[in-house]
């Protein structure tokens, strides 16, 4: 983003910005964790576990917290969800496990499952405590395309099951959206890389960063060289508005700005608009809106074309935006972006007009399918079966790039896990 009189760095001091980007949910100390753990009823066939896309046995891990069996608790979590540490930070628990908690029925306050999960897993990463053991080598080699949650999850499970894995990651660093997306205050202290290091420490996984797949020969070559291929390529392209003025300076893809923010050593050096308008109603829209505010933008407006109930951002996220002083507008679609060389405003249906120095587009991403023409797709995403198999033999896929992908780390982890288990089964059958 080019600087000008309205887009400036250092709107806030480094100290102020650092303060604005501390942990959104600080970790529980032991005393509080024990009290919170005691609130768990240890339900039979627990609704929270059913609600967890990775099926973590939540009552069991909480029971182990109660008995100070942290290593056992972390194993219960990580054996179903190797990214249980990140999910403890970024999962919208209020629409998953915590929404299902039976405590909601009579007191409307669920057990703080997310915070407890963090309590149980933090020490494992801090001490780099290896909880898994690899099975005897199978002699099989699997290619994983994409170094995000789906790919890492698949790779870890395959490694545990005794296979060798090579991950082809197009980015400079692994972890996908955990590293380049997601608001910084949800995953402080470089946790995404800590988690990657932990995952790779199992052994048997070769991580090739900055290694985009050659679109022309990529998939065919991989199928030739490897016993199986898993695709976790995510959604690399941002959706566009397709309206007048979209090419003006200051009109940005939210996801790219967040990536820039996540990689900045000193966030106060990031260019920030005075008036920021965010188009969209999902997590990314909230993330870019709240972060802009925390970087010092004076006015941040978030505009969504439908009502609040249709927003894919959870109620908690919407509330976070409101308490962060983001103005939310509903039922307004962008019609024209105004400006000379640089954006100065944006007009919406229904007569809403907003001044803008920066317009962030956060209306979803789509898959970059070049090089995967041989695979069946639907609405631009891979079609897979219950075992994450694509239409091509020995090619599996998961995460956001498949039909039914949910734009959630936890779902991507589950896809990768299911695929790995099926790949193992198929390769051992052969």
């Amino acid at each position, binding site marked *: 983003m080019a600087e000008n009189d309205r887009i400036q760095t250092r709107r806030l001091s480094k100290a102020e910005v650092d303060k604005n980007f501390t942990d959104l949910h600080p970790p529980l100390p032991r*005393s509080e964790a*024990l*009290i919170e*753990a*005691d609130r768990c*009823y*240890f*339900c*039979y*066939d*627990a*609704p929270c576990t059913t609600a967890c896309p990775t099926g973590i046995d939540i009552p069991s891990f909480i029971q182990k917290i*109660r008995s100070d069996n942290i290593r056992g608790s972390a194993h219960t979590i990580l054996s179903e969800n190797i990214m249980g540490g990140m999910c403890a930070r970024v999962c919208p628990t209020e629409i998953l496990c915590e929404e299902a908690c*039976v*405590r909601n*029925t*009579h007191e409307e306050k669920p057990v703080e499952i997310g915070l407890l999960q963090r309590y149980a897993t933090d020490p494992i990463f801090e001490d780099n405590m290896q909880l898994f053991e690899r099975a005897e080598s199978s002699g099989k080699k699997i290619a994983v395309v994409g170094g995000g949650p789906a790919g890492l999850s698949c790779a870890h499970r395959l490694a545990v099951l005794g296979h060798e894995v090579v991950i082809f990651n197009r980015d400079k660093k692994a972890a996908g959206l955990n590293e380049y997306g997601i608001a910084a205050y949800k995953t402080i202290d470089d946790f995404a890389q800590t988690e990657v290091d932990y995952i790779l420490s199992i052994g048997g996984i070769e991580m090739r960063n900055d290694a985009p797949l050659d679109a022309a020969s990529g998939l065919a070559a991989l199928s030739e060289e490897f016993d199986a291929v898993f695709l976790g390529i995510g959604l690399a392209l941002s959706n566009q508005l397709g309206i007048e003025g979209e090419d003006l300076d200051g009109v940005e893809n939210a996801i790219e700005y967040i990536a820039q923010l996540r990689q900045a050593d000193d966030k106060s050096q990031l260019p920030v608009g005075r008036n920021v308008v965010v188009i969209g109603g999902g997590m990314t829209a909230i993330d870019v809106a709240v972060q802009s505010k925390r970087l010092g933008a004076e006015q941040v407006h978030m505009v969504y074309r439908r009502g609040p109930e249709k927003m894919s951002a959870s109620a908690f996220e919407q509330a976070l935006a409101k308490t962060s002083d983001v103005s939310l507008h509903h039922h307004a679609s962008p019609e024209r972006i105004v400006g000379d060389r640089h954006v100065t405003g944006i007009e919406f249906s229904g007569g809403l007009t907003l001044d803008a120095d920066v317009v962030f587009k956060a209306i979803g991403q789509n898959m970059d399918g070049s090089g995967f023409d041989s695979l069946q797709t639907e609405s631009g995403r891979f079609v897979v079966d219950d075992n994450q198999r694509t239409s091509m033999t020995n090619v599996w896929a998961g995460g956001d790039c498949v039909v039914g992908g949910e734009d959630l780390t936890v779902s991507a982890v589950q896809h990768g896990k299911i695929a790995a288990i099926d790949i193992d089964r198929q390769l051992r059958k052969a």
Partner: protein
Amino acid sequence: MANLKSEFLGISSPNPFWLASAPPTDKAYNVNRAFEAGWGGVVWKTLGEDPHVVNVSGPRYSALHSNERRVIGFNNIELITDRPLQTNLDELRQIKKDWPDRAVIASVMFPMNAESWAKYMPMIEDTGVDGFELNFGCPHGMSERGMGAAVGQVPEYIQMTTEWAKAAASIPVIVKLTPNIANILLPAKAAMDGGADAVSLINTINSIMRVDYDSLTMYPTTDGMGTHGGYCGEAVKPIALNMVAEIARTQETAKLPISGIGGITDWRDAVDFLALGSSNVQVCTAAMVYGFKIIDDLTDGLSNFLDEKEITLQQLIGKAVPSVTDWQHLNLNHIEKAVIDQDLCIQCGRCHIVCEDTSHQAITNMVDGARRFEVIDEECVGCNLCVSVCPIDNCISMEQLTTGTDPRTGAAITEQKLQWTAHPNNPMRNSE
């Protein structure tokens, strides 16, 4: 407000709550604070002969905690008073003078010879105390020296020592019993036979709290070594209630007044002890955990309860004793089934899994494909397990079947009582 004024062996106190002989009654400073807070009486920390004992200068106490660190059980290795006898006598005299309306009882423990008792009892009585409590219960330290529980575990010693004490005293003598015995009736009878005016129970239970998970020694220790202590607090109440009820419901001991002790924390605990036959109660652990202020809830809680029930304190005492009997006299024709209130049910499924895993497979987890917990009357034996584990108050209740047949056994419901003594399966049944 119901009148809580209490008379125990003719000793009056403004309420039936005494502080038990223990650290809270160790000296005048504490006792003054207790009386200012409103306690009805104190049993002074046990006096012994000079030279006084010494305590360890390391951990004397440890606790069994819940996860929110609420103290559920408590254990101590403190001995009797570790101050000179004369210091205690002076303070007792002053306290009784300053608080004439409160009960002040001297707990005592002397070596096993008549001379010691004859020597010390009159000296102590002279301070103006209202009565004696003989400490035959302390299970640690003192028992190794042939006193405390070492006396309380041998009925003959109890009787003999009680006789010595009675001979030397002109004021009431209460014998405090140890629970570290097989049958509480034997020491209770021995005390009665020795002339005791009342018994108080229970003293603490032999206990080791846990090990230290780092050092793998017992916990706590003094310089690496530990010893068993006396267990008390909420966790011991059911044990104490049984012993109190046994004495109260047994014909031979039924007339023996009881001062109830063991885990009393709030007024409901006091109701338990009173209704099962105690004439007053003594409290220690709750005060040591929360301070003397708990007397507020104890007194006005009990008073409000008596008002609501429209009974007097005197009428409450022993009220529940007739309901305690032997197993063999329970009515085997009485049939109850659990009923789950579906409006209150939060669907945790605890009732299902405990019944399924450990009892009678009498609660569903699924009805017509939906998560739902219902009692299967054909399997339910009415055991009360589901009621016990349900986290929601009153969500599961037991209901009596009064007509028709028991779906589990097919047997007709009858008002005719059937005790084991007359049951056809009982080879020893009454055969008239």
